[in-house]
């Protein structure tokens, strides 16, 4: 441990995620083993009891997300972790968390799908599932780490955002981030949002402030006599699923509270964008060869840059739209069939050429592969 209380360790992204969660105040974890996320549960089972927390291995992922919801209303910061198949099973529970404004964190260490797919190989195929997997209209927040360090940092951030926005927040890690051992600087002065108990005075648990957000987070048996309801409800939590106006108001707010406060969420790294003609839009582990490709291209005098999204949902429409205004070509490398590239296309609105660079099968793009896409773009070789 260094003087400022920081320690450096060489650990896997999955372990960094666990340390980040605990540093963020997570004191409850319920999960179910699955490759390549199991280390998160395993390390939680070791660490949590030592900090006064609780680890539960549940009978399945459905029970896990629901236990997380119970624990959150019980007063704990809580999370679960899984991969594709397990995350699919959690969709109903995630929607419940969104509906009831239950802050919680879901870590998806992505592997190749669909179905059992590729248990031991990486992918970024679940980025849309995070947003659209559940039924009904609601917004979530999703962060995508590119390294073990970010697995640590963004997990802390995920817990903070969950508390601030009272939404489920995904950490969209992947097998590569999860299983690569790297240097991680931990501890020190961290920004951690502590849970604040709301005043009981005339308290309406689901009455939002002008920004659409609920203030604080109450717990059961602290005198609130809470009513938490998964049907649409009014500000007191009383069911209103057959009331068109109240239902519309609630659902609109559940979406707007994230959309309209997107500025508090957007998290991007800009690399050499000022004069870039070609920009790589990237996230997660794919961003690593992308950034290397940009370095190499620059060293060859090519005006390339990169926009790395650390927060992918809500999608930063405005940032991309602006980028499209100033860049000729946007290249979007992804370890999937081409998904966020659709968002980039939408926001670019025809004002820049958008090139998808999808990769299936589980192997990370090589920097060379991305570099050659950059060169193609500069040559005008590929078009939308």
């Amino acid at each position, binding site marked *: 441990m260094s003087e400022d209380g920081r320690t450096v360790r060489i650990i896997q992204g999955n372990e960094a995620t666990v340390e980040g969660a605990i540093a963020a105040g997570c004191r409850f974890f319920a999960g179910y083993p699955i490759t390549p996320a199991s280390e998160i549960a395993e390390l939680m089972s070791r660490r949590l009891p030592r900090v006064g927390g609780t680890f539960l291995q*549940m009978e399945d992922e459905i029970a896990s997300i629901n236990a997380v919801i119970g624990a959150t209303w019980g007063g704990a910061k809580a999370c679960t972790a899984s991969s594709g198949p397990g995350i699919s099973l959690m969709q109903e529970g995630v929607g419940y968390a969104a509906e009831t404004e239950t802050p919680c964190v879901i870590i998806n260490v992505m592997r190749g799908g669909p179905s059992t797919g590729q248990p031991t190989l990486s992918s970024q195929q679940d980025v849309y599932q995070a947003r659209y997997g559940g039924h009904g209209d609601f917004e979530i927040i999703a962060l995508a780490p590119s390294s073990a360090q970010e697995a640590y940092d963004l997990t802390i951030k995920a817990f903070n955002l969950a508390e601030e926005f009272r939404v489920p927040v995904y950490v969209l890690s992947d097998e590569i981030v999860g299983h690569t051992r790297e240097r991680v600087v931990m501890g020190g002065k961290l920004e951690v949002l502590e849970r604040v108990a709301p005043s009981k005075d005339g308290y309406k648990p689901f009455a939002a402030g002008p920004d659409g957000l609920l203030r604080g987070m109450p717990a059961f048996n602290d005198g609130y006599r809470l009513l938490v309801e998964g049907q649409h409800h009014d500000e007191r939590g009383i069911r209103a699923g057959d009331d068109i106006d109240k239902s519309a108001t609630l659902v609109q707010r559940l979406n707007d509270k994230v959309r309209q406060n997107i500025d508090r969420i957007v998290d991007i790294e800009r690399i050499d964008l000022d004069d870039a003609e070609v920009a790589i839009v990237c996230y997660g582990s794919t961003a690593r060869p992308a950034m290397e490709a940009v370095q190499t291209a620059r060293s060859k005098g090519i005006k390339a840059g990169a926009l790395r999204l650390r927060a992918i949902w809500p999608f930063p429409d405005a940032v991309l739209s602006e980028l499209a205004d100033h860049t000729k070509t946007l290249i979007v490398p992804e370890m999937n069939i081409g998904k966020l590239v659709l968002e980039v296309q939408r926001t670019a609105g025809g004002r820049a050429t958008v090139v998808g660079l999808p990769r299936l099968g589980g192997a990370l793009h090589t920097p060379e592969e991305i570099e050659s896409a950059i060169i193609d773009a500069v040559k005008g070789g590929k078009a939308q």
Partner: protein
Amino acid sequence: MNRIAEQYLRQETLPMIFCPGCGDGTVLGAFLRAVDEMKISDQLALVGGIGCSGWMPVYVNADAIHTLHGRAIPVGIGLKVTRPERKVVVFTGDGDAIGIGGNHFIHAARRNVDLTVVMINNSIYGMTGGQMAPTTPSGATTQTSPYGNPEQPFDACRLAEAAGATYVARWTAGHPRQLVKAFKEAIDHPGFAFIEVVTQCPVQAGRYIKGGMDAPEFLADIRKSVVPVAQAERMTPEELAGKTRIGLLHRSQRPELTQQLAAIRGGEKR
């Protein structure tokens, strides 16, 4: 409205959605009386599943969460382990508890988590309009067994016991006083406590299974179909055929989950 209801119901949520003559209201009344006698409304964490029965906690003026269909028990576990002194009571239907939620049910029993799980057995899916449940008698017609139920029902109490529950009782909506006592015992019981309550559902089960019985007829029919455990012991198998045993069916002691977790947190090696 009676005194207990006035004191313990969350008035702004009324009226209750239960149909006229539904047993759920009677069971809820008995629960309120147990809460009153135990003076525990501040310590309660009530959890409801989805189904008519799952609405019961919503009407009680205590901390309550109305969860997803079948998922009340894991939510209850999350509430319990985060503050073990909480009295977590789960209200659930036969479909909710041992239909879609059956896995959580048996695992909670196995872990012997200190929950009280009240299962309303109305032999049917009430809320959705009268489809067959895992408790529907074999041969009974319902909205999804028009030619007679080809399946056989669970004995929920037997299942609970085999899975590991340490308090198992069965009563009916026609036994409100016994229910008050059972609720008190179950809440005090340090482990997984299960109470099955056989109830009349005049609107769905009454219509589809019972050929149109109204609530009083239906309840009378239920009372005829049950025998107290003590009496059952003195009866021959022939006399017992088609009868359901009611009363305290099982009580035992096994390590309880939250205590085991506390031991782990305390650094004890189990």
